[in-house]
Structure formats: C-alpha cells, structure tokens
C-alpha cells in the first residue's frame, strides 16, 4: 500500500483523488452544517417608545392613548381652525431609553390621509430635537400630498423629544369634518 517505489502516475492519481475527496467532503460538510444552523431570537423591550406629554388628556384637549408597550400612540381630539395655525407642543414625546449606543430616528408616513382634503390646508408633525425634523401633509389642488420620510437624526441616550403637531383648516372648511393620518417613528 506504500506509494514509495510506485510509478509517479499512481502518486498523481492518488493526489488527484485526495484533492477531489477533500473538496467533496468539505462541501458536503458545509451543506450539512447549513442544514443544522439554528437561530435563537429573543424578545426584547424596545428602547425607543412614546411617552405621554403635558398637553395630553387635559380637559378639552387632545386624548392620547398608548398601547401596552408604548410603541403605538393614538391621538384623537386634535383641532384645526380655519385660516389659523393651531399648535400642540407637547401631546406625546419620543423617548430613547437606551443607556449606550447610537440611535437614529426619523418621521415617516404610514397611511395616507383619509380624505376631506378641501377642509384642510395642512397637518404638520415636527420632531423637536437638537434639529427639527418635519413631516408635512399639505393640501395641494384639493388633494393631500404625502410627504417623504424626514432625514434621520441621532437621539441621545436617555433623552425624550416632543412631537409638535400643527394644524390649519381651510377658509371654507366645514365644521365637524375630520382627517385620519398615520405616521411612524422609524428607529435605526
């Protein structure tokens, strides 16, 4: 069984077979390994969530409803007055509860305004951080124009920024008309 003393042809044959064997064995082992790979996904509480602002749930003011994880905020009872800008400074805030790392956030549209465009001039959302980030829903030629997502901004650790909401109804607005808008706060 020794290769020593055998013709070189046999050595080459053996070497070729050895190389192809190593190739087949390693590729097959890799294939098996890919079959056995398992992922463990843990559930964590989000570090970025909504916080109730001082303007929320006051008599005659807007109502803020947060879900159990504080990651969805529903604001109802916002008002818009014809030809006047009405500003809600502090209905809800976005909090970054992380103690380390870099967290980027931005405002982005989720669901387009539900209608009644002729009754409104705009609904604007502003992330009141170290720099303002805007998401402006305006009415152009009788229909809502959906904005693109704002630029990302780094929110420092253990910091909360308010989301300022500005509304303005059109001069010909009909009292009682409403619009529903859904936006998201993207986190990276």
């Amino acid at each position, binding site marked *: *069984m020794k*290769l020593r003393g055998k013709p070189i042809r*046999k050595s080459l*044959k*053996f070497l070729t*077979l*050895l190389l*192809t*064997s190593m190739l*087949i*064995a390693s*590729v*097959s*082992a890799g*294939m*098996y390994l*890919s*079959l*056995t790979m*398992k992922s463990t996904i843990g559930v964590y509480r989000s570090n970025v969530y909504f916080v109730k602002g001082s303007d929320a749930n006051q008599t005659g003011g807007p109502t803020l409803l947060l879900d159990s994880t504080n990651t969805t905020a529903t604001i109802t009872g916002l008002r818009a007055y014809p030809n006047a800008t009405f500003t809600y400074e502090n209905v809800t805030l976005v909090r970054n509860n992380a103690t380390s790392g870099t967290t980027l956030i931005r405002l982005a549209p989720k669901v387009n305004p539900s209608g009644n465009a002729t009754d409104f001039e705009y609904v604007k959302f502003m992330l009141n951080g170290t720099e303002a980030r805007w998401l402006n829903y305006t009415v152009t030629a009788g229909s809502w124009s959906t904005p693109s997502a704002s630029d990302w901004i780094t929110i420092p650790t253990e910091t909360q920024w308010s989301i300022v909401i500005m509304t303005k109804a059109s001069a010909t607005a009909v009292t009682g008309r409403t619009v529903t808008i859904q936006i998201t706060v993207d986190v990276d």
Partner: protein
Amino acid sequence: MEKLASELLPEFFALMGIDLFLLLSLLTCLLDDRLPKAIPYIYQFAALAGFGHLLVSKNFLIVFTDYMRFWYCFIYLLVSLANIVAVNIYFAAVKKQWTLAKVWSGAVTFPTILMSIFFVSNYSYFQGVPFPLFLQIALVVSAIIMGTSVAIFLSPEALRSRFKEEKEVRE
C-alpha cells in the same frame, strides 16, 4: 425532556455515506493493483452523487418528511457499507488474499459498521425509539472486543510477519 442541540439530522447518514465512499476511493486507489482500475473513480462519483443527494434534501427540506429523509439517507449509507463489505469479500473470496481481507475487515469494515450502528442508535434514541438494552450492551461489548482485537492484530510486527508469510506462499 428538552432535546439537545446536538441532535442528528437524517442527512448525517448521507454525509457519513459520502465520507465512506471517499475513504473507499482512496483505499482502492492505493490497492489498485488488486482491484479494477476504474473502481476509485466510481466511488468518487458515488460520493458526488451523495453530495447531490444532500443538495436535493436541502432544497426540498419542507416537502420531505423526517421519515422519508431518514430512509433515503440511511439507504445511501447502507449502499456505502455494502460496498465496503463487497470489497472485503472480493479480497477474501475472489483474490484469496486472506491477510488483506482480515486487515480490511479489522481496519475498515467493522469500524465503519460499528460507527454506523452507533449513530443510528443515537438518532433513534432522539426520535424516541431507543435500541433495546441488550442491543446497546452488545454494541458496547463488540466495540471493546473489536478495538482490542484490532489493536493486537494490526500491530506493526504482526502485520509485517503476516504479509511476509503471504508473499512466501505466493512465491
């Protein structure tokens, strides 16, 4: 009982079959003066077919059930073991090379069969069908006996004298 993370997949038997074919290919290449020249290449192709086997298994993982995957991988392993036994029989019955046949059985046939039985028993244990106790004891006992005999039988001195005897007989 919580299952261990190291639980075997049915494809392990296909992987084992591939490795056995590769081992056969290399060994038959070394012994090519006693075997047909094409045999090492045939075993390489058989190993390659096993890789294709794994590839198909991976792509149709959801379609094939565990039961089906086990059987087609296990059959592939059985084919590779059958080839090892066949080479052993070929040396003994056709070539009448008893010493080589004994060495082959001690160094290749029995260890591979024993390892295969061990892994099959391990797989069946995790599938909730453990081997009966007497079979498990028989497995351990045969492993000990085989290990001891192979160590004695394949000692360099013993091998040298046996091959020398065989050569003298042939001359």
